[in-house]
């Protein structure tokens, strides 16, 4: 197990290196640059700006310099938000995305897991059709539709909750619901599928034959195996949740990471694009590793394979 952990961590290094290299050159080869604007900038000013950010060096030298700084933990300054370091921006935006992501995940699990389990236990009854139908709608309903609907009901009409912003705890409710309901739908469907699969297993039948109550069968025997697909899904889903959602952040005006990432690409803010991509990549690697651990804990078969 220890070896497995070490080797996975070591694998992460070349992965990150390749991601950094590819992203670096992909952003540079995209047409346009950070200082293009609709009002013409005199050539000498453009040169000044470029040299301020080291863009006057040959591309490969820029790359080497970036990698050198990266090794020292320096992600460089933002081109768009002048005066801010990329690491500073991530430090500001990540806690926002993290709290939003965690509460959305909480909602997703709180709704998705029971709904999926009930649907599996009462297969082909209304207990199955109704939550699964709603889940299907949840998956199909994009957040840019659900978000404004929730705002209309709870903020504009009932005036119970704030429509947008990130200033008090009540600001968390509507965006995490919007984000969480979508994931809840997936979790419900995956839980149902996983549980159905497990409930057909021999060891569950044995437990039933030995007279275990349905509740005990579910919670003691079936749940571990039944949740495997959900856990596999949760790793990348969690990374997606906490790395910010551009759409949710735009609808609810939340200063999260997703907005930095997407606008940086539009602005050709090279360092912010690279910084956020690397941050996201690291996050996925770590979370996938966690998922592997959880899987091993839940599934004896997976443990043996390692």
């Amino acid at each position, binding site marked *: 197990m220890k070896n497995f952990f070490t080797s996975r961590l070591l694998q992460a290094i070349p992965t990150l290196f390749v991601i950094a290299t590819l992203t670096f050159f992909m952003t540079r080869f995209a047409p*346009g640059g950070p200082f293009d604007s609709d009002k013409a900038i005199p050539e000498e000013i453009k040169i000044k700006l470029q040299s301020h950010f080291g863009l006057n060096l040959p591309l490969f030298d820029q790359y080497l310099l970036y990698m050198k700084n990266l090794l020292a933990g320096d992600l460089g300054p933002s081109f768009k938000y002048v005066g801010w370091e990329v690491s500073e921006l991530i430090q500001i935006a990540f806690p926002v995305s993290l709290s939003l992501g965690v509460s959305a995940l909480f909602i997703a699990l709180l709704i998705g897991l029971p709904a999926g389990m009930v649907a599996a236990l009462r297969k082909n009854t209304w207990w199955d059709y109704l939550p699964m139908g709603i889940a299907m709608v949840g998956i199909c309903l994009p957040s840019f539709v659900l978000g404004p609907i929730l705002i209309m009901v709870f903020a504009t009409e009932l005036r119970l909750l*704030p429509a947008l912003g990130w200033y008090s705890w009540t600001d968390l409710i509507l965006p995490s619901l919007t984000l969480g309901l979508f994931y809840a739908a997936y979790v419900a469907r995956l839980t149902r599928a996983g549980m159905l699969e497990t409930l057909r297993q021999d060891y569950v039948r044995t437990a039933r034959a030995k007279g275990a109550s349905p509740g005990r069968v579910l919670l003691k025997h079936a749940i571990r195996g039944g949740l495997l697909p959900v856990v596999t899904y949760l790793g990348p889903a969690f990374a997606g949740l906490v790395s910010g959602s551009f759409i949710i952040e735009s609808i609810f005006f939340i*200063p999260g990471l997703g907005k930095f990432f997407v606008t940086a690409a539009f602005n050709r803010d090279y360092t912010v694009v690279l910084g956020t991509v690397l941050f996201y990549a690291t996050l996925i690697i770590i979370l996938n590793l966690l998922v592997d651990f959880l899987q091993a804990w839940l599934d004896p078969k997976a443990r043996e394979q390692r």
Partner: protein
Amino acid sequence: MHFIRKKSFQLACCLLAFGFLGSCTAPSNVEKAIEDQILHFGLGAEPQHLDPHLATSVAAHNILSALLEGLVGEDPRTLKPVPGVAERWDISEDKKTYTFYLRKNAKWHNGDAVTAPDFVYSFKRILTPSLGAQYASMLHVLKNAKTYHSGKKAWEEANVGVQAIDDLTLELVLENQTPYFLELLNHYSWFPVHPPTIEKFEAFEKMGTPWTKPANFVGNGPFSLWEHRINSVIEVRANRHYWDANLTQLSGIRFYPIETSDTEERAFRTGFLHVTQSVSSDRIEYLQNKHPEWIHFEPYLGTYYYRFNVKVPPFDDLRVRKALSLSVNRKLLVEKVLKGGQLPAYCFTPPDTGGFTAGDGFGYDPVQAKKLLDSYLKDNGLAKLPPIELNYNTSEAHKKVAEALQAMWKTALGIEIQLLNMEWKVFLSTISKGDYSLARAGWIGDYVDANTFLHLWRSNDGNNLTGWSNKEYDLALTQAEQSLNPRERFTHFQKCEDLLASEMPILPLYFYVHVSLRHPSVQGWHPTLLDHHPYKHVYLKGEVAK
């Protein structure tokens, strides 16, 4: 019975929960504002810089005009210069020397006096080539400023026309007579910076230093910088050291950089914002019908137009450019497609720009258009024009205009237009390389004078990009710059407009209108051409409708 009791218990619980949530919800920003006099302002975008010498955006202007004040201020209705840091000024007979007398009680936020040397320092800073200020050319009207800015000579040697006669007297000498000079002083590039702060952060010729962070920023305007949470809020609070603090009624302004207009509208409707930066074009009609008290249409100093690349066929031939222009029904475009109160543009400079209204040069005559195109086709032995690509940056609004024009040209001339939308930066780089035949464009004036529009079409102007150059045009514009008699200047401007209309390197379509939502409690806010609203005149008053 038992069932009913259980149900009523559940109902009571629900009501309690909702009541609790309801009681938790504080009154909205707009409701509170009558008491606390805080204006909640939709900023549209996060400004790139809060350094007045490096700033380049409308968003930056909206904040900097709260934090800093130049030599003159603006009348809230007309934007005409009124005393600012300078309480009065003299203009020499040749109209080239301006002497400003600074008020004694003008203070920086830390209590230091605002002095003439501070202005000299500030003007020197923005003109210093190594700072790389994009708007430094705004100061080129000062004598020898261009020489210093080009880096050819040192400050003393260049003898730039800026001199502090004493602590409270500042003399500015101009290169040419510039009738709009005082108006120009309200552009943020002319705002002063606090020299000790700049020195402390070694920011004289360096961008990106932390002097613009709230703890460090020292301004001289009616408000001081209180908080800056990136992509979330910028808050300014009334500054008690400001010389006109008695007039200022707002206790603070919170600026929210909300980029999407739909989100802004939702924020407005829930009482989060007093003023939005924009309104989604799909929503204008609805809001106009349902909430005429919220929506405001105000003329804005800008022109929406298309550029022709006159270096490539078929637009290297005047007849084709003319044919395209003559077959555009601009009235129909603004009334049926845009529907936002825009004005059709039959010239390039918006009407009444600094008193100048150009005559209509670009008309509508589809019959003549067809004749011109036929003659071109005949001369070139063509049966029809090959398809033409129309480039625009991705946006629903630009697409709508492009599709309308595509249809008009198809009907009137039988031309096939291929619409090609591009991401903003790709678009900019394509146009600046001249890699296009027909492309959308827009221009917003920096100050209220026709020069801010017409300089674009000078032969060597970096914004021209059409490949068109005309010596007569350049000459007329130079003559306009040098003449002080308004009537004479307008004659030269008209000459420029006439040349544009006869050579048609561009296709003006409409003049902008600034559409925004504004709460009725906002007072002292007047429509102005540059969308400037001096905050010291703004206040919040009245009953707030829930």
